């Protein structure tokens, strides 16, 4: 039942997980709406989205705490829809860890093995092995309350992994940790996930965490799947205006589509100037109103030329932020545009009131969506 080696042939780890048209209805409201995710074995997928978008609901459906209104959950190609949580072979790390306070660390880790009828000696050695894996082998006799937050989290991870689950679910596991510890634990979890090759779902509303840890990111909004892509694609080629603004920061500028083909488009901005963009999303004809998204690092601030056919503006404020300098520029149509430049390139801050011209640092960086 529990194989001795982490990647033994009998190991159920690295199973595929298919969420097929999952819908969850609470009364009249839809918490999850037709979400389909095809997750590869051993992949680490982040569920990213604002509060209330249905992340926890989706996780509870996968774990079996909640029976979905519609759709199917398939693990390793087999439906688990009718199975209760204790027969699903899923591991969970809760946001508050939920370590049993009346048991020692070792008893916590051995709990799942005990429930599976594994004998005492194997329980002990297996628990010790898991604790060693999370580098807490020396703290087995403590109670959870005698541990720091980061240590408790490691125990929770060891407890979840000890039963050799097919799928590991992490519900905002780093939210309660301070910033430095969070980074350490993110690296640690990633290391253990790679080592065990277990298919993992990480719920988070921290976009940096999602982008840095996940193989693919699923962005959810109001119960709907907005995009399911590798992190760089989520950032560089967002499928929707929501993804573009929720992940990273973006300047939104109104304009009119001049022309477009499969690889690029051109937009005349209301604030002035013509800009070359990525191919517009959706079926947009020349002449349609569009919203152009430009990330702060996509622009540079150049001296004003007096040419009316460029994107001109006036400096409102300059902020040196460590490695970068951020300027806020008020452009022609009154929009405030943030521009972030490496400090190596711009050593001086521009004084408020300076007239400037904004130019893309490269062509076809901006995304174009139909105007909202």
């Amino acid at each position, binding site marked *: 039942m529990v194989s001795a080696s982490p990647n033994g042939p009998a190991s159920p780890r690295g199973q595929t997980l298919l969420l097929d048209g999952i819908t969850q209805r609470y009364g009249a409201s839809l918490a999850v709406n037709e979400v389909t995710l095809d997750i590869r074995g051993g992949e680490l997928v982040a569920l990213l989205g604002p509060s209330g978008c249905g992340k926890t609901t989706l996780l509870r459906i996968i774990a079996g705490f909640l029976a979905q209104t519609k759709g199917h959950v398939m693990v390793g190609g087999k439906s688990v829809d009718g199975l209760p949580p204790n027969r*699903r072979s899923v591991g969970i790390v*809760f946001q508050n860890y939920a370590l049993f306070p*009346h048991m020692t660390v070792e008893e916590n880790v051995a709990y799942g093995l005990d*429930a599976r009828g594994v004998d005492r000696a194997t329980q002990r050695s297996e628990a010790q092995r898991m604790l060693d894996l999370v580098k807490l082998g020396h703290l087995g006799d403590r109670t959870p309350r005698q541990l720091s937050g980061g240590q408790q989290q490691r125990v929770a991870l060891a407890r979840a992994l000890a039963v050799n689950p097919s799928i590991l679910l992490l519900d905002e596991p780093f939210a309660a940790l301070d910033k430095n510890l969070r980074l350490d634990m993110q690296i640690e979890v990633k290391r253990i996930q790679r080592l065990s090759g277990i298919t993992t779902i990480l719920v988070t509303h921290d976009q940096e965490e999602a982008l840095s840890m996940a193989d693919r990111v699923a962005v959810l909004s109001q119960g709907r799947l907005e995009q399911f892509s590798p992190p760089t694609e989520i950032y560089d080629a967002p499928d929707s205006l929501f993804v573009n603004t929720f992940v990273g920061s973006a300047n939104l500028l109104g304009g009119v589509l001049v022309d477009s083909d499969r690889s690029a488009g051109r937009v005349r901005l209301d604030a002035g100037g013509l800009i070359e963009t990525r191919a517009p999303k959706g079926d947009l004809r020349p002449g349609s109103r569009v919203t152009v998204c430009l990330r702060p690092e996509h622009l540079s601030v150049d001296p004003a030329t007096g040419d009316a056919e460029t994107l001109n503006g006036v400096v409102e404020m300059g902020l040196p932020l460590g490695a970068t300098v951020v300027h806020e520029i008020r452009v022609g149509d009154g929009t405030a545009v943030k521009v972030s430049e490496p400090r190596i390139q711009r050593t001086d801050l521009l004084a408020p009131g300076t007239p400037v011209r904004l130019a893309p640092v490269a062509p076809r960086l901006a995304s174009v969506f139909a105007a909202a």
Partner: protein
Amino acid sequence: MAATLRDVTTYDLKLAAPLAAGFILFFVTPLVILLALSFQTDPQGGHYGLTQYVAFLGDSFSLGVLGSTLWLGVKVTVLTLLLGYPVAWLHQRSPAWARGLIMLLVLLPLLTSVVVRTFAWVVILGRQGIVNATLAWIGLIDTPLKLLYTEGGVVVALAQVQMPLMVLPIITALSRIDPNFADASSVLGAGHWRTFRKVILPLSLPGIVAGCLLTYAAAITAFITQSLIGGGQMLFMPMYIYQQASTLQNWPFAAAISIVFLVSVLVVVSIFNALGRLSRGYANA
């Protein structure tokens, strides 16, 4: 300046003076008088000595009354726990509207007078009472069962009367348990029963101990219910003390058995408290 920076956790002891005075006047003083009285060798006054205690402890009848009273408390506590825990658990598991209803039913005994409640039990348990009438109607019995004036009757009636004292602390303890614990347990492979036995039950132990303590203390001192349901044949400590003091006017002996009863109860309470302290380790996680 210094006054405003005063530590708010320290209070002026003078503020406690009225309460302290009341406590000394109405609690400590009578207790001291009781203690003094218990050492009188004779109801008419006279010498001081251990005569009354020797009489009590050497008398198998008296020891029997003490023993059966303490044992009655154990039976009532166990029955109340067995009936009360599921009620508390049900309350915890129910939707909001049902919780209100359960809470009302649990609190109802507290809202009626003990005498009324006890007479209700007399009606229920009597020879022509509800229980006997129903059993006869179904055809299970020909002659009425003796339910009233039995120890079983006393235990059942006391269990009902003291139910809130058991249920409320357990509800509190259960509501403090993180619902994620049960989810964590089940996802680790445990069924409902294992989850209950290994996680919920140990974590609700502080509530169980508190509930048992309150129920026990209330059950062994429940003068009215004990005497009305128990009738004349059964004698428990509160009635025994009352008889000695009021009927026989043997105040020194009444005082002595009161003190013995008090000490016995204190011993039981300390045992419960020790258990409570052990279990409290689990409670605040």
